[in-house]
């Protein structure tokens, strides 16, 4: 299994994600520039946190026009695993790969704090390493993590079990306490909390490892998922 971590201008969690993948989870990962046009050779694609293009206008609004996003869409359409974390989630919603939008936290402040999460669906390629019904704590660090979707979309998310992570103590005003969702096909994940920041006992928590382990389980079970 080989992963790509996309570096958009202004991404700042790209190296953290690469470290979590390569050094801790044993998944070789390359940083791929937003100007690249192909994702050939990768089994999973990660869109990292940060402030792509300064988050100017709206977070993720400008990044979605990067050349790499055409490749990401193709990759996702072919069933490849795509994970957007924090700013990556924002980019995926702007790009239309995930429904809804992330707007300003109700406090209008950036919040950096541990967030307890309920794993709502542990039967996904991203959460199958967590026992069903687990509560984990992952750090959040965002100003615009307040998830919004219209009522019809919410109904669809609930009925298709696309809500993967829910805050147990909603920090930002997200509807239905949503912290992470997948697309309808289940191969694209967006989440505001940072699993890559909860990988080492020294840094206080290993609760994030399950996201990466789940992918490894899934890939081992399925063999390499995407034929490029």
């Amino acid at each position, binding site marked *: 299994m080989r992963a790509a971590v996309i570096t958009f201008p202004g991404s*700042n969690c790209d190296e953290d994600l690469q470290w979590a993948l390569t050094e801790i989870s044993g998944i070789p990962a390359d940083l791929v520039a937003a100007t690249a046009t192909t994702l050939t050779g990768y089994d999973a694609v990660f869109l990292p946190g940060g402030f792509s293009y300064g988050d100017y206008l709206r977070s993720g609004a400008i990044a979605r026009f990067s050349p790499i996003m055409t490749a990401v869409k193709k990759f996702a359409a072919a069933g490849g695993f795509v994970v957007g974390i924090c700013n990556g989630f924002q980019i995926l919603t702007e790009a239309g790969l995930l429904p809804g939008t992330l707007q300003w936290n109700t406090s209008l402040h950036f919040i950096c704090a541990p967030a307890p999460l309920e794993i709502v669906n542990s039967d996904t390629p991203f959460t199958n390493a967590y026992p069903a019904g687990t509560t984990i704590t992952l750090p959040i660090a965002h100003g615009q993590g307040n998830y919004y979707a219209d009522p019809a979309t919410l109904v669809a998310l609930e009925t298709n079990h696309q809500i993967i992570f829910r805050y147990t103590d909603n920090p930002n005003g997200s509807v239905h306490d949503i912290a992470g969702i997948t697309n309808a096909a289940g191969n694209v994940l967006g989440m505001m909390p940072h699993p890559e*920041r909860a990988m080492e006992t020294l840094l206080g928590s290993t609760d994030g490892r399950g996201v990466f382990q789940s992918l490894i389980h899934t890939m081992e079970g399925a063999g390499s998922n995407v034929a490029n």
Partner: protein
Amino acid sequence: MLQTELSPEQIQTTKPYRQWDMSDAEYDRFTALIGHLPTFTEVGLASGMWSEHCAYKYSKPVLRQFWTKNENVLMGPGEGAGVIRIGDGLAVVFKAESHNHPSAVEPYEGAATGVGGIIRDIFSIGAKPIAILDSLRFGELTDPRTRQLLDQIVAGIAGYGNAIGIPTVGGETAFDNAYARNPLVNAMCVGIMREDQLQKGRAAGIGNAILYVGAKTGRDGINGASFASGTFSDTEDADRAAVQVGDPFMEKLLTDACLKVTNEHQDALVGMQDMGAAGLVSSSAEMAAKADSGMALNLDLVPQREPDMTPFEIMLSESQERMLLCIAEGHEQEIIDIFAGYGLDAVVIGRVTPGHAYQLTHHGATVCDIPVSALTTDAPVYHQQSTMPVRLIAPADDFQPVITDMNAAWIELMNQPTMASKASLYQRYDAQVQTNTVVLPGSDAAVLRIKGTKRALALTTDSNGRYIYLDPYQGGAMTVAEAARNLVASGATPLGITDCLNYGDSTKPEVFFELEESAKGMTAATKVFNTPVISGNVSLYNETNGTPIYPTPMVGMVGLIEDCSTITTQEFKQADDLVYVVGQTRPDFNGSEIQKMITGSIGGRLAPIDLHVEKAHHDLVLAAIRTHLVTAAHDLSEGGLLAALAEMGLPKYIGAELQVDIPTSWLFAETPGRFLITVRPEHQAAFDDIMGDSARLLGRTVAAPQFTIQAPNRTFTTTIAALEKSWEDGIPCRMK
């Protein structure tokens, strides 16, 4: 907008330089140095370069006495930042900077650009920035303007630091009326690099290129140091000294590109410096001066955001996110291409020249032709008069609190804004990006591991204007001692310090006395704790309606932890640990938080601090930590023993039962040099062996979430819940 500049003769007679804070004597000195009547541009450049901000003309005699070198210092003051060796071929780079005045006027952008500026100082040395700390002082939160300043200054620091991806891991926030209209905003940045990548700001080698990189130049903060608006233009005055707006996105690209140049193109890079105060003129003249070179720049080539900028404006603009590089001749395109890859402007604007002249051309005309030294090394230095302030000659009587209800006093103390939880502020900072932060804000010192090694760095900022106000010398020494104590409590050996010297108008002899004496006290302490001053910054003229702020030198200290397994935090870990206090407690209440709380002001003398005893305690505590005997350690500072005890018990709701042999009111005393430490019962003998009679057993931690304290005069019990509520509400409730 066309502007007719005054001729040299007109300048001589109408003396416009007076409004830029240049005296007649300075004008005469400058004229003599350059050998002709200065042009408008020349005298303008001199006014910027000879300002306190660039030339340190008032503070240099004080700074010269700092102790700046030990065997580990690779680079001391004088460059963008100082550098200290930490082993494994690595070095730590750090510096602090004040942005008090810009933040008072425009809090969000002032604080943001303060952070941006200090980051550039770090990567200009070749280091990757890994952490930011912020030391803040405000007036009282009862004032709506103060509440707005606090909110916007924190927002500005967050807005810049979070976006650029450098964690803000620590700092301090305190409140006192002395800072009412003059908040202090000091930011410190820490970086890491390989020793062999050390980069200096020099422009050497005749023919080498001067490369301008980053944002375009606009009329932002022109001559921020000495410009008084409305002085030399008839139109558009209001827009002249436009506010500087930070662009962290641009700075992120600039950081990455510059580090790529230092890491991968060493042979092309001769020198690099950021454009800070007095912008292009100070960076270019200083780079020439340090290499003993001449320099010629063509101002038409400088990227400009606005039309019709004058040479004066181009050279003294303080537009943000700009760097100046000296590139070996022939390598220009190679470096320009790197910046282009990040979407950044990079333009050759001049060359290193033979001789020592500093020459500027604009629209085909020479607008400046003077010796480099006239702007740099030959700037004046003044030896100020120093007079002891009256308040120090006849201090008030010693303060002794009379406390009838210990429980209520303790709860109220935790609610004082200076004591209260700062979580509502630092939660707005991303403290974890880069995934190195082991100890987050909320502890004595922030701790960051260094990937690929067993090592970690501990970082803290400390300042206590109250103490220095009461006794500049002792207070100066105590500030350094407190910083060292914070690092030791985390398990780190202090390595060195950076400082921001925040004072009032030092042309007042009383203010200069405070500056001089506190620097002496700091120097004495740095020698004892083996923490040379490797960088720093001076901010004078901090006054509210003519009243100076408390003299407030901020000390940023960095320490080394050789082995991550010895990182120690302050919270109680479990019930039944033994609780010890290290150091003697005396009735020291002058300048204390309890004095402020009860009387509304401070006064009295400070008892002398014994630096050698304190250093001995530090060594013992570190020895105990390194043999894994200590489960928690916390230094005692503002609020004394009870404040520290509360902070240790709160995080895990673990209480304690203690017995003391002093009057209960002394539990609020701020005698320096003390720690609270916990130890597993089975390690009691080993711990006692190391500490001897420097540590006293007070009692033990208990599962019940309350503190019970037995003293000769009374016994009292206080619940953690009550303390916590009061502590957590302290700031948020006053911000509403």
